């Protein structure tokens, strides 16, 4: 396990460096575009030159990259071109909000998807299974934004039950103080990840049901509810740990969309606004944060899986 952990961590470090090089190269592909985006299309050549010099954009790219890495290691990501605040402060302010939004949505999605998937596996090929399969496929195939806007049309515009905008409070406590505003963004993100989770639990539970230990449990005369709860459910939950790592990118995509639809001031919205206004420091830092989170997440998922399921031996591979 230790050797595996070391190798896996080494790989993760290489990938993080790769993410840094990739985003840096992509963003600097078009020289001068940040100045034009920040100063406006009518900026003179002199002003652009001044902007580039002030932000170090006139230096050779490798030198800029070294500076970026050195500062990033110290937690300094520069100052946002459009918001004129330190990028690290912006991110520190927004990350907790995302932890709240994404955490709630994932928990809710799991709470629905696990029973749904196990139920479908047990009642495989029944009418209920087919209906739920159709529901899952439809949810999976809907564009995230359409979903969010349909919910707004129904609950905010037609029924006037829920606000169409997410709470704008600065602190997480402030957001929680206005939970009604959280409902629609959380539900949108939940429905987005629900479909994938439930399909995964369903196929995992189907293969668990075919295992010999389930046959043994039934042969012992255990009640079906006991068999399901103690043997099927627990073993089917194991791979769910992996899917949490797997779906991280999809959840980030969902967050960008949901935050744009509901104007939720999280990382997704910050990133989207930075991308459209070519705010290099914010783009670089937020991509890096997301990349590191994904890498660490999948590392943790693998390790957790190895601990939870003693049949898995990483050392032998």
């Amino acid at each position, binding site marked *: 396990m230790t050797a595996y952990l070391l190798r896996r961590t080494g790989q993760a470090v290489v990938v993080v460096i790769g993410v840094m090089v990739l*985003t840096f190269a992509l*963003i600097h592909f078009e020289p001068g575009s940040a100045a034009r985006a920040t100063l406006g299309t009518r900026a003179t050549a002199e002003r652009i030159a001044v902007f580039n010099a002030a932000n170090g954009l006139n230096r050779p790219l490798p030198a800029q990259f070294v500076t970026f890495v050195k500062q990033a290691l110290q937690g300094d990501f520069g100052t946002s071109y459009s918001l004129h605040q330190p990028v690290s402060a912006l991110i520190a302010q927004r990350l907790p909000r995302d932890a709240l939004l994404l955490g709630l949505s994932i928990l809710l999605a799991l709470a629905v998807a696990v029973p749904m998937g196990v139920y479908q596996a047990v009642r495989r090929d029944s009418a209920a299974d087919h209906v739920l399969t159709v529901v899952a496929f439809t949810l999976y195939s809907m564009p995230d934004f359409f979903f969010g806007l349909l919910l707004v049309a129904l609950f905010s515009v037609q029924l006037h039950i829920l606000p169409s905008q997410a709470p704008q409070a600065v602190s997480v406590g402030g957001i929680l103080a206005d939970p009604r505003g959280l409902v629609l963004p959380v539900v949108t993100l939940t429905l987005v990840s629900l479909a994938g989770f439930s399909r995964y639990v369903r196929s995992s539970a189907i293969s668990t049901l075919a295992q010999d230990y389930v046959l043994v449990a039934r042969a012992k005369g255990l009640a079906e509810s006991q068999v399901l709860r103690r043997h099927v459910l627990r073993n089917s939950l194991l791979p769910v740990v*992996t899917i949490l790592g797997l779906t991280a990118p999809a959840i980030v995509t969902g967050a*960008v969309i949901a935050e744009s639809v509901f104007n939720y001031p999280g990382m997704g919205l910050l990133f989207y606004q930075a991308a459209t206004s070519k705010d290099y420091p914010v783009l670089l830092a937020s991509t890096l944060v997301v990349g590191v989170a994904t890498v660490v997440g999948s590392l943790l998922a693998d390790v957790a899986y190895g601990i939870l399921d003693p049949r898995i031996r990483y050392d032998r591979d």
Partner: protein
Amino acid sequence: MTATDPAPLAEGPPAAGSPTGARTPAAGRGLGGPAVALLRNRRARAGLVLIALVALFCFAGPLFYRTDQVTVHLDLAELPPGGGHPLGTDANGYDVLGRLMAGGRSSLELGFAVAVATTVVGTLYGAFSGYVGGVTDSLMMRVVDTFLAVPGLVLLLIMVSMFSPSLGGIILLLSLLSWLSPARLVRGEVLTLRTREFVQAARMMGGTGPRVVLRHLVPNAAGVVIVSATFTVADSILMLSTLSFLGLGLPPPNADWGTMLTGGLDFLYDGYWWLVYPPAALLVLTVVAFNLLGDALHDALDVRLKRT
């Protein structure tokens, strides 16, 4: 190796009915068995029929129902259905039914183009990486991991906001992001195939590297490739609609369902239902069809594939 690799799972006791042990060489060539299994599958039939209908609507439809999708007619804007416009007109005066056909063409073309491009590139990359092994394999896989660590939409947003591309450009960008998962899957297959007797025999008989990869490894990994290509079509069409929503989709006068849907949503509260529900229904129906087909193929070809 990260969580998407099936390898850690394969270390455990083989699951009941595990295909890896039982698969016969060159299963990729004789698809008779899987084809029959596929047609017996209800999801596959539903998916295939839906795809055929949508394709017929988009490609054959304009032959019978001619509309002008280039000239803006503001005097004809936002007409309700009826009177020569079965589904009304949109904010630019375009006929909605005709625009659905045109939009479907670009959505389908994009989906297929991305699927073909990523399948070719991803398969070759993954097969080569798995076949060569060692440090090269490790480096090649770290490149894939790097791209996978940054969510697709994030990379797309960065690139699209830099280039504001055409249909071809968006196909290229989506392909750049979608070759990763076939590459990983094929590599995983090749790693298990590499040690099999028929591959060793081919090498012993003097088969060169490219020959072993192309004639023996790739055909046997065809199952995973076909399944992942089918899902790629669905994902690309969805991704295009998401880009359109963010205002970074195809530039006018191109049409695509995502742009139509986004434009229509502005009028959702005014009761202009014909601008919202027809494109939404077609978009969801098409994506569902490809997902159904992919899911059925997955079962028919007995592929062990984890969908993210």
